[in-house]
């Protein structure tokens, strides 16, 4: 009797422990919502769908994509921190504008405090092109021309304040030249602008690829850390003497205060998803370069990127006015 009584107590104790940990242990027990702050059908949406599909098989629960586009990709994450519980059932894709916009204007969220960062996933391939009929054969030609004609070199971007705009201004500052930005609305318009030689250059993500393949546009440089396998002859920023990588990287996060065990589970599932051949092919289609960082490194990265962005934005005169 005595013996079995102790066993009962021990079992009961284990039971209590089990039930206390049930949230994190059994997670996930219902479908997870992943907010993608871009319209459905775009490159980010399609690659996130592929990653989520693979991760959901590992987690054993479906992941539903909720497209909440707007505010350069900030409306979705902002809505999440304002309304979702940190239970791991609502997470969001975090584009770099979530860190950049608060430096430029008043916003409702604080990137340092309001998120539980989970995993850093991938980034885009950006590049600078010019029309095949242009006088510019290499990036050096552009720099030489711009030195002789300050402000005369025009470049098309998919929008003011995007990584393309800020990257080009940083390059110009380092090269000691002055360029003129002409902001368009996305890759379709910048392709048309540079193809019709309305602007001399185009800075955009790989929407230019078919036109470069067809010989209608000339790719002058890419902004990734290593050369693109699709364009092995095109130099990177680093090779041209600009110590930068600009790939507008993104990861996923939940609202603040998530259980570290749940964060770890999500991290492991999404990390495995990055190695899934289906995900690898999808990312390659959009020239996205996997850029894995674990939870700790991602947190550090957020601080770093906020500091470096602040410097750039201040030099460009885009920072929000302090009261």
């Amino acid at each position, binding site marked *: 009797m005595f013996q079995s009584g102790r066993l009962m107590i021990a079992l009961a104790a284990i039971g209590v422990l089990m039930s206390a940990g049930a949230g994190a242990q059994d997670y996930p027990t219902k479908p997870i919502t992943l907010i993608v702050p871009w319209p459905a059908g775009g490159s980010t949406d399609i690659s996130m769908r592929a990653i989520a599909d693979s991760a959901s098989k590992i987690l054993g629960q479906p992941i539903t994509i909720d497209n909440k586009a707007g505010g350069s990709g900030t409306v979705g994450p902002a809505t999440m921190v304002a309304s979702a519980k940190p239970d791991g059932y609502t997470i969001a894709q975090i584009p770099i504008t979530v860190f950049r916009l608060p430096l430029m204007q008043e916003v409702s969220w604080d990137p340092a405090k309001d998120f539980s960062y989970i995993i850093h996933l991938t980034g885009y391939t950006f590049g600078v092109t010019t029309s095949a009929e242009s006088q510019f054969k290499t990036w050096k030609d552009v720099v030489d021309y711009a030195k002789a004609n300050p402000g005369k070199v025009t470049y098309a971007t998919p929008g003011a304040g995007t990584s393309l705009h800020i990257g080009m201004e940083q390059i110009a500052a380092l090269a000691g030249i002055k360029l003129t930005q002409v902001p368009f609305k996305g890759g379709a318009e910048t*392709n048309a602008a540079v193809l019709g030689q309305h602007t001399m250059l185009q800075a955009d993500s790989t929407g230019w690829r078919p036109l470069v393949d067809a010989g209608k546009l000339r790719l002058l440089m890419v902004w990734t850390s290593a050369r693109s396998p699709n364009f092995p002859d095109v130099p990177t920023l680093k090779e041209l003497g600009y110590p930068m990588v600009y790939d507008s990287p993104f990861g996923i996060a939940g609202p603040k205060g998530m259980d570290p065990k749940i964060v770890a589970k999500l991290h492991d599932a999404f990390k495995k998803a990055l190695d899934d051949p289906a995900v690898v092919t999808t990312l390659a289609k959009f020239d996205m370069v996997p850029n894995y960082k674990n939870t700790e490194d991602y947190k550090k990265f957020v601080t770093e990127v906020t500091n470096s962005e602040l410097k750039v934005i201040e030099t460009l005169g885009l920072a929000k006015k302090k009261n």
Partner: protein
Amino acid sequence: METLLNVGQGFGVALLPINLLYCFIGVFIGTLVGVLPGIGPISAMSLLLPITLSGTPESGIIMMAGIYYGSMYGGSTTSILVNIPGEAASVVTCIDGHQMAKQGRAGPALGISALGSFIAGTFALVALMLVAPSLASVAIAFGPAEYFSLMVLGLVVLTFLTQGSMAKALLMACIGIVLGLVGLDSITAQPRLTFGRLELIDGIGLVPVVMGLFGVAEVLINTEQIIKRDVINAKITHLLPNKADWKASAGPIGRGTILGFFLGILPGGGSVISSFASYALEKRLSKTPERFGNGAIEGVAGPEAANNAAAGGAFIPLMTLGIPPNVVMALLLGAFIVHGVQPGPLMITQNPGLFWGIVASMYIGNAMLLVLNLPLIGMWVQLLKLPYNILFPLIILFTIIGVYCSSNNVFDVYVMIAFGLIGYFMRKLGYEPAPLVLAFVLGPMLENNLRKSLILSQGDLFTFVERPISAVCLAIAVVLLVGPLLPSLRKKRELVALDEGV
């Protein structure tokens, strides 16, 4: 000869039973989303994109394309029947289409819009096959300066849409432009007129504005006049256009097709601009412009042909340059890429089966749409016999669902209700919503291109007259503005002014 061989190959692909099925599903869904107000081709295509991933690229893209041109057919149905445009390109169809329905001529209005769409769609396809590669250069010849002048021309043309006071129409256009400015400034990304609201950062959505001003306002106005029951009492004479209708419509369909096709090639709002440009052109050419706004069949035939031809023209920059001229084409570009096909200068040579297969499927799809839509006319007309106490709640229900679906945002539903109230008072006081909506669409493009051209020209205003395409657009705009003041044309203007007094 080579073209014929290619077309043959294309039909070989398009006539495969599986592709025929996908084509039918596409045009069927397209007709549905076109008819349902608010749920446009964009939301339908983005929802269905993942479903197409499993099949071959041909069948997936054939279905997506089917949704797009199918919705162009369906979009006019609600414009005519209940004065709610199914999508932005059908705003103009409301003006005369709904008047025709009120006079018991809903059948001919629906019929001419389906047949006009078929003729225009078929012509656009022939043109797409024969001249696609050579026309691609037209799309890129338009830089910011050219777009600015085209938008100026567009805004001048707007004034032709009005039946009432010119001053009221211009006021509406100004309000439309200001509403279009809400949100992030497209050049410097500074928020304007957002009053610190996160929801307004992206600007006011077109769908809630259109649904409010047309749909909700129409219901509010009608509940007031419920005793009249004009729609139901009007005797429905015949379902298809008669000989006189055809005679009146032939010219507008032909002109609308050509106009629509060329404007469709240009990136940005091609189908919207082409539909009201066609309306303005027909009103200008008509011997009896006073009939416009009171149920003129030309005012339905021309714009409907124009927006369908524009849908065909829009494929040219996508297929030949990989440049999508509108959001729907951007989604289609996404579909191509998902299937590992990159639209662009190399696509026609690298994937001839796919390119010609899609073109051939659009012929088949257009024929299917005609077969699908003509018998439906009888059913739609019956819908008008529904008692108002069932019809009106249904309209409100569908507009709310449509607005919510287009953005997944309750805020947009509030915006729609607000614009519904505004639209109600506008009608009571004799202000028309069409100029407001069109200026709302054109205004941001006008501002953006003005500022871009000035950045490019380093502040030199002469850039607009030095560039030939831009100069021609501005010259036409001036002629249109000054023209009515000349004695020979004054007669027409007086006729137009007459119905102000009626």
